């Protein structure tokens, strides 16, 4: 063989080999693609929803507050509400067209309603036909796709939610032969290649929607011939395996439409929200045209940075739609005249609540591994209350700032945490994990375990009430020496350093006397107190050391909220929940977390205890709360302070809300704050600001009777013999003796007479 032919042969062989290798490589790439697509095309992080607002006659909600809520939900205020998600203000009323929403318990259709108001509450609701509607459940706030991995975010739309015009527009503008080509469009490629050859650069794509999808899914941004070849091979493979409809749905959900800081905006669902603050189904022609135009270059035509360019591009798209007869000339002209109408970047995403979501994640962890939350497109319905959360965040931030200022503490030296629950449903509605509430850092509400201090005392007293003590029973507040398991002795002291002698239980608890509490707890048995705490919701029974009685046991604000929710719920325990239900993307309910209760203590005993916790707020260590609480709002609660003022606690409740606040320093340094001086100043403004709070006033159990006693002695008394009366509930027949000088003989006769009369009348 001559050298020349040999070289030629070698060259040909190399070329052939190279081509074969390339073909094999492409085939190998394409082979895996279908499976990866199957796995990835539904790659959608869980969507987490807040609790929906229920609107009904009598709800404490003024017209403009309602309008504010609607705006927060992304409803638009318009002159004449005809579309879903719009409303208008009328004198004393709001006219609204609600959105259709798929709740965990079924689809709620869109409806047109008039909600009328009187004073600061809802008067009634009427539908278009003038019928009264008893209750309206609004579509809930979306808390964002907080389980997204890698900073990507989706708002997945189902095939039936994609507007048909969008489908047609995508084909008309991006891929005219989409319905017939096999994944690549040879004619399109030839045209593009010709154009590229002319310009000498790789400018025109000629990419089909399928190729664009592949590029978004699997390939980086580099523009090389090899990548183009891989893209084409993969597109062909995808088209063989999936139908056009599936590919188009994936495209609509996947394609890149812009950038919001570190967050990539993928898909038309999120795009509609990001640019217009609307649902995809609510977009008008000019808005849809703008989004379709963005596909050519999301940063090039960014309507916020280059409004002129974006508008020009929108015109081009509209012209294509008219040429393809998808819209009329009049529609094109109308849309062309529209302003861009880009939403301001206030964004519902700025409301990021990592502390609450951490709790959601923990609750779901058992059933759903992180991969599933990040990719299975689950819909999670929670009890999150945006207003309560905002109120809690503000109360903590303001409270800590005020404490640092008025007590001359270093700025930023204090930290805190708050948990808010609804008593009856045992739902957590707000969690603040620290003063930087938007920061996903150390979550003190869940993870900071601190000595509970006097927050333990209600459980000592409840154990005593269960054992037959009454709130009027005397207990000695005298120096006491406790022998510990180690053989050492321990002599606790009162906060004020004094001993107060014989006092009734109600006073010992309201004033948080340590000596009386340790004595009472020793009489009842530490073991019983520890077991009671377990029954009321602590995961484990705390070790029954005497130090438990003064609050050495460490717990998190969340655990404290669990315990106090059981008290507020009358002794019925339910595990605190954040998640109500989880459904799949197509609306199937996968899991419900229903309300389940266990009677953990005697309701009558808990009723008595709570009466004492009301006295904490009226006469005891919590009375400074009245500075913030609305007049007449009955609350019950307890202060807590751990050794050397390291932890300041307050836990308490009204008729429907329970809140626990903790204030301290991250490095566990003493802050000098008691529960009343610190955490109470966070708790009280928080409770005062909660919407439509109702006072704590449960019906008295029939087995109890209400008696007035002298706060000092605990003896039965009236105004003639006591200057310091307090009313307590005691088991019938267990009323204490009358104090001296109350005119008891007369009264006894009187009450006998009354009983006698009642006996006749029965």
């Amino acid at each position, binding site marked *: 063989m001559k050298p020349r032919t040999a070289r030629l042969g070698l060259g040909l062989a190399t070329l052939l080999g190279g081509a074969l290798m390339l073909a094999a490589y492409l085939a190998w790439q394409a082979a895996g693609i279908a499976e990866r697509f199957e796995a990835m095309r539904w790659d959608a992080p869980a969507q987490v929803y807040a609790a929906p607002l229920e609107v*009904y006659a009598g709800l404490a909600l003024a017209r403009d507050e309602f309008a504010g809520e609607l705006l927060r939900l992304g409803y638009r205020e318009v002159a004449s509400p005809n579309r879903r998600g719009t409303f208008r203000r009328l004198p004393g009323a709001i006219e609204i067209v609600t959105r259709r929403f798929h709740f*965990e318990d079924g689809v*709620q259709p869109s*409806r047109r309603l008039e909600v009328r108001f009187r004073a600061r509450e809802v008067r009634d609701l009427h539908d278009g036909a003038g019928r009264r509607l008893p209750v309206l459940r609004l579509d809930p706030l979306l808390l964002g796709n907080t389980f997204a991995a890698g900073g990507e975010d989706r708002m997945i739309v189902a095939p039936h939610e994609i507007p048909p015009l969008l489908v047609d527009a995508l084909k008309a503008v991006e891929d005219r032969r989409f319905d017939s080509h096999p994944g690549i469009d040879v004619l399109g490629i030839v045209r593009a290649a010709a154009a590229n050859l002319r310009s000498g650069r790789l400018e025109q794509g000629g990419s089909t929607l399928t190729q664009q999808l592949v590029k978004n899914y699997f390939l980086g941004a580099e523009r090389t011939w090899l990548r183009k070849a891989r893209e084409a091979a993969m597109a062909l493979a995808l088209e063989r395996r999936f139908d056009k409809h599936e590919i188009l749905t994936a495209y609509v959900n996947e394609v890149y439409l812009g950038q919001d800081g570190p967050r990539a905006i993928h898909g038309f669902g999120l795009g509609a929200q990001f640019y217009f603050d609307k649902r995809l189904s609510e977009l008008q022609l000019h808005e849809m045209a703008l989004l379709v135009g963005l596909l050519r270059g999301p940063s090039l035509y960014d309507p916020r940075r280059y409004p002129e360019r974006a508008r020009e591009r929108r015109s081009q798209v509209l012209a294509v739609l008219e040429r393809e007869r998808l819209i009329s000339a009049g529609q094109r002209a109308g849309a062309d005249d529209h302003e861009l109408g880009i939403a301001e970047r206030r964004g519902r995403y700025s409301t990021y609540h990592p502390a609450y979501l951490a709790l959601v994640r923990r609750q779901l962890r058992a059933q759903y591994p992180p991969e599933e939350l990040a990719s299975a497109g689950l819909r999670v319905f929670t009890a999150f209350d945006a207003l309560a959360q905002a109120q809690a965040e503000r109360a903590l931030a303001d409270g800590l700032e005020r404490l640092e200022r008025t007590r001359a503490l270093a700025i930023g030296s204090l930290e805190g945490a708050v948990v808010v629950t609804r008593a009856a449903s045992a739902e957590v509605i707000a969690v603040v994990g620290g003063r930087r509430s938007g920061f996903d850092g150390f979550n003190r509400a869940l993870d900071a375990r601190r000595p509970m201090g006097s927050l333990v005392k209600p459980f000592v007293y409840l154990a005593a009430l269960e054992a037959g003590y009454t709130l009027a029973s005397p207990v000695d507040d005298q120096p006491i020496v406790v022998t510990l398991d180690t053989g050492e002795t321990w002599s606790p002291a009162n906060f004020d350093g004094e001993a107060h002698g014989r006092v009734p239980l109600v006073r010992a608890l309201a004033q948080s006397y340590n000596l009386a509490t340790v004595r009472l707890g020793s009489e009842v048995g530490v073991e019983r107190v520890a077991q009671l705490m377990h029954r009321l919701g602590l995961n484990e029974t705390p070790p029954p050391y005497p130090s438990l009685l003064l609050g050495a046991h460490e717990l998190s604000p969340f655990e404290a909220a669990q315990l106090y929710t059981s008290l507020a719920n009358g002794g019925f325990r339910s595990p605190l929940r954040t998640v109500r239900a989880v459904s799949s993307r197509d609306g199937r309910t996968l899991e419900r977390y229903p309300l389940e209760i266990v009677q953990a203590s005697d*309701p009558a005993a808990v009723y008595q205890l709570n009466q004492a916790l009301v006295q904490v707020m009226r006469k005891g260590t919590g009375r400074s709360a009245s500075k913030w609480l609305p007049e007449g709002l009955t609350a019950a609660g307890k202060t807590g302070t751990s050794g050397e003022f390291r932890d300041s606690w307050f836990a308490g409740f009204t008729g429907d809300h329970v809140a626990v606040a903790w204030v301290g320093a991250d490095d566990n340094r003493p802050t000098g704050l008691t529960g009343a001086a610190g955490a109470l100043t966070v708790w009280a403004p928080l409770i005062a600001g909660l919407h439509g709070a109702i006072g704590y006033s449960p019906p008295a159990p029939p087995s109890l009777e209400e008696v007035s006693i002298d706060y000092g002695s605990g003896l039965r008394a009236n105004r003639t013999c006591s200057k310091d009366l307090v009313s307590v509930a005691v088991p019938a027949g267990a009323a204490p003796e009358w104090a001296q000088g109350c005119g008891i003989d007369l009264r006894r006769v009187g009450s006998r007479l009354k009983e006698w009369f009642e006996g006749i009348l029965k």
Partner: protein
Amino acid sequence: MIRPALLLLAVLTAAGCAARAPAPRDDAPASGAAAPASPTGALMLLGREQLAAGNHPGAAAALERALRIEPADPELWLELARVRHAQGRDEQAAALARKALSLAAGRPALERSANALIEATARR
């Protein structure tokens, strides 16, 4: 090109049609002559309908909605107890009936019903 034009028409009128949507299936019913006007009354009715239809989770969900509005209404707790009883979840039914009892002072008829339910759960 008739089809796309129709589609467009559909898009543009979808919102309007939806506003005149037929009577809802899953939401609390709009009140007719006999239906209760109170939100909890309506939700309790919805719960009873769901219970009668054998949809226990749906019934419980409606009652939980009502309880969020009126947490101290013993009738709602008792109704939820009945749903659990119908599901054969006796322990839960008894606990819920006890919760109803704890709020039922001064309502003898309700107390009797709650006690009867507690006894029924104990017998099974």
